């Protein structure tokens, strides 16, 4: 008992000391878990003994440090945590799921599902998840025990991203090679919602206003919808690189957005996408594929590059510092 009290007191003193050193920002954010999916590394050599470890890395201190979890080279594109604590990874090998914080994993999918680029867990029901893959959308309603193809309505099923509407979880949006698609019945049927002919790489929903959605496209920049995906308009003023792989919204202020581009690094908007300003100071690699803004501390932003590793900014993107994964392909970032 005395020992516990002593430890508690010592912990409190340490926290106070750290706060006084200006490190409170990170500790405030430590409840968040960040999942970084590293697809590969430029340093990887076929059959080499000294290949860098890739796959899933987890941080619980706002990106200050990372721990590798689970498998290595199975081409991990994206990882997300569910409300029940389970972790899901979208991989070349299919959809993986862990229920013990990443110590052990199960490939939930069979041979029919491969090249999965994104997996999203239903925020209201963690046993429901959707996989966006090279072969279209697949859905599980039993925590991955079984999966069902959900491609009715797609002309071309290649999809790289999917969003579950947080205000109505049966409504979905999918980023396809030929426009953005919407489903109103949990993926049972899909219909084109806009930007036909454009390769949509990512789709993001505003965390506060469910009617606002953002698209990042191949060569056509950013599109926004303010009516729940019925109409879309380009939003590219100031955006000089128009292939957009990643979009992140400040959870505390939806007027502030960040986009990751191919070749132009990071751009930031403070007027809800009406104009964009470059925010790449310190980025040594300008092919940005993933972005995340920490909800607890929105000035901390992480950005993943292709072959340049992970960068971190603590001042809203004014200045970036290399964080980890030298020469790594940081394909996906998410936070829970």
């Amino acid at each position, binding site marked *: 008992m005395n020992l516990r009290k002593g430890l508690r007191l010592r912990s409190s003193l340490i926290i106070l000391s750290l706060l006084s050193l200006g490190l409170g920002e990170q500790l405030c954010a430590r409840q968040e878990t960040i999942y970084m999916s590293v*697809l*590969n590394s*430029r340093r990887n050599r*076929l*059959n*080499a*003994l000294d*290949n860098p470890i890739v796959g899933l890395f987890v941080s619980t201190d706002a990106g200050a440090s990372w721990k590798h979890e689970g*498998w*290595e*080279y*199975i*081409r991990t594109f994206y990882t997300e945590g569910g409300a029940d604590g389970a972790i899901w990874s979208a991989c*070349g*090998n*299919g959809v993986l799921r862990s229920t013990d914080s990443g110590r*052990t*994993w*199960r*490939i939930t999918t*069979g*041979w*029919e599902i*491969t*090249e999965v*680029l994104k997996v999203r867990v239903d925020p209201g029901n963690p046993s429901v998840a959707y996989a966006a*893959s*090279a*072969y279209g959308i697949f859905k599980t309603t039993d925590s991955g025990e079984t999966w069902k193809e959900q491609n009715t309505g797609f*002309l*071309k099923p*290649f999809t*790289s991203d999917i969003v579950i509407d947080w205000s109505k979880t049966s409504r979905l949006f999918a980023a396809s*090679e030929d426009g953005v698609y919407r489903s109103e019945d949990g993926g049972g049927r899909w219909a084109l919602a806009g930007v036909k002919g454009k390769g949509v*790489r990512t789709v993001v929903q505003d965390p506060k206003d469910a009617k606002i959605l953002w698209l990042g496209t*191949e060569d056509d920049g950013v599109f926004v919808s303010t009516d729940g995906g019925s109409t879309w308009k380009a939003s590219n003023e100031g955006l000089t690189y128009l*292939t957009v*792989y990643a979009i992140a919204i400040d959870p505390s202020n939806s007027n502030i957005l960040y986009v990751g581009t*191919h*070749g132009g690094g990071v751009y930031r908007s403070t007027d809800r996408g009406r104009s964009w300003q470059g925010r790449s100071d310190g980025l040594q690699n300008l*092919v940005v*594929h993933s972005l995340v803004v920490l909800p607890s501390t929105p000035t901390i932003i992480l950005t993943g590059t*292709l072959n340049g590793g992970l960068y971190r900014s603590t001042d809203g993107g004014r200045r970036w510092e290399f964080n980890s994964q030298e020469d790594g392909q940081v394909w996906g970032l998410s936070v829970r």
Partner: protein
Amino acid sequence: MKSMRVIPFVFLLVTIPARSPRQTTFEQHRQRLIDVVSGERDRGFFTVTAKFTVHRDTAWALRMLDSLTADQSIGGMFYSYAAIGTYLKLRDQLPDSMRQKIRRAFMERTMYRGDTENHWVMYYTGIYLGAQTWPNEGRSQWFNGKSSEENFKEAEGWLNEWMRITSTLGQGEFDSPTYFITFITPVLTLHEFAKDPVMKRKARMMADVLFADFAAEHLEGNYCGGHSRDYPEDIINPLAAPATLWAWLYFGEPKVELWNETRYRPRNRGGWETVFGATSSYRLPEIIYDIATDRSKPYVETETKRLRNVIRFGLEKNPAVYKYTYMTSRYALGSLQGGILQPIQQHTWDVTYVSDKPNNTIFTLHPFYSGRELAMFFPEEQKFLADEVDRYHKVYTSPNKWNSSSPYEQTFQHNNAIIVLYDIDRKAMQQHIDGFFPKNLDERTEDPSGWIFCRAGATYVAFFPLKPYQWIEEEVDWRWRSADLKNGVVVEIGSSDEDGSFDSFKKRISVSRPEYENFDQNLTVQYTARSGDRLKFTYGKARLLNGKPVSFKAYKLFRGPFMLSERGSGIITMMYKDKVRELDFNKVTVREWRRAK
């Protein structure tokens, strides 16, 4: 997955011949191979297998196996089938501690499944045999969180689907002198150790198909014709390919022991995959040996294959690939129809000839590359892919590469004549076409008629460029290069058998100049071969033979004097003289009989 309903097989052998001299050759070659490999010291499962097979240097082999088992950097699909195959072949000779070690490594080590057909054949063969070997294990025992039963079912499902699609629509990574080994080796391993008699039989039938497919385009160790995938080193030096050692083992050709040949340069793991063939109970049906080695009469072999899965920028998942190959005892002229039929390593056309010198081939290509092409087949970003692929395959973006799929290349072949046309977009990567001419040709002359004549031993090549060109001297070849975007060549092949002397060949060819007036406008070439057949080809439009359109739609899965199969039927028939062997993948039966003369 829909489970495949399999009717219990019936295996009818009308004749069971005694061991033939050809089988004796196989026995001699397999023993020689095992003997040679068992003396090697390179680290690999195949070397270990050879050493244990002849009880040579087994203590060292055991240490090597221990090292292979302990090495965490070895994993994935190549490890999958090789590890379990070695275990199953040697388990009676291994100490229990090593058996347990292999079992733990196999079940617990993460294995990447891969992203292409050959990867999956290797991976699922390994998983199938592993789950069969260690049944009744729960989810927690396996690296992928699936029980033995679940793993077995998944692997069985994929293998059945692969055999179904390959026997009806054709192979995806077809006719590859390099990747042949990544199909035949796991298939033989599956045949050897599958306990389910139906799977065992199907694996044997697949081995027959793979060998027969090779045999129909085989010429003294060379895997001839167009290829889905091949490495530049093998394209410009066909006998260097790993498939050649399989030809030596099973077809008895080439006559030389390849490991003593400087021209034989197999890559990866010593190239000793053939040890799994040499230690297998599989024996090549005699009819396939005959198909591989009888070149007494020239023949045309046409085949249909399929593209690997198109995941983007296309509406059809597996469009057809059409192959045309003309085989003689001296040379083979073969082609695919052109276009993007496989990413990265496609080899669209060539003439390959019998020679005791290396680099026994001539061909042209447009060294195209694009991220969009790669994005048709790979899920990563198209602006990222070219650089990424270049990192592994080294030459993908090179203007001088010797393998390429180009959307701006088309062919029209009839017997020993071919027209190859190019209509290269001004924005396309690489604005030239290249041709490979080995330096060791016996003769290479530029005739005032416009023809370039080449002689390699008894094979004669006539090559007519439509546009200006230059020669670039390189280490083993003269690179023929032409920079016109609307371009083409007409090629006709002959030999001493057909034409007598080289002068006679040249004389006959010289009088028949290709017609291509206003080519930049109409992209049309007409050529009358010395057989009298008239070929007319318009890029992107009709191929006319003697005024009649040639339709690829009429192509079968296999069609030639030795192979016949209707596309979609699942029935593949092999024929040689009066002998017939029929593989029915629907009923999983093999029948052999003799035709009435």
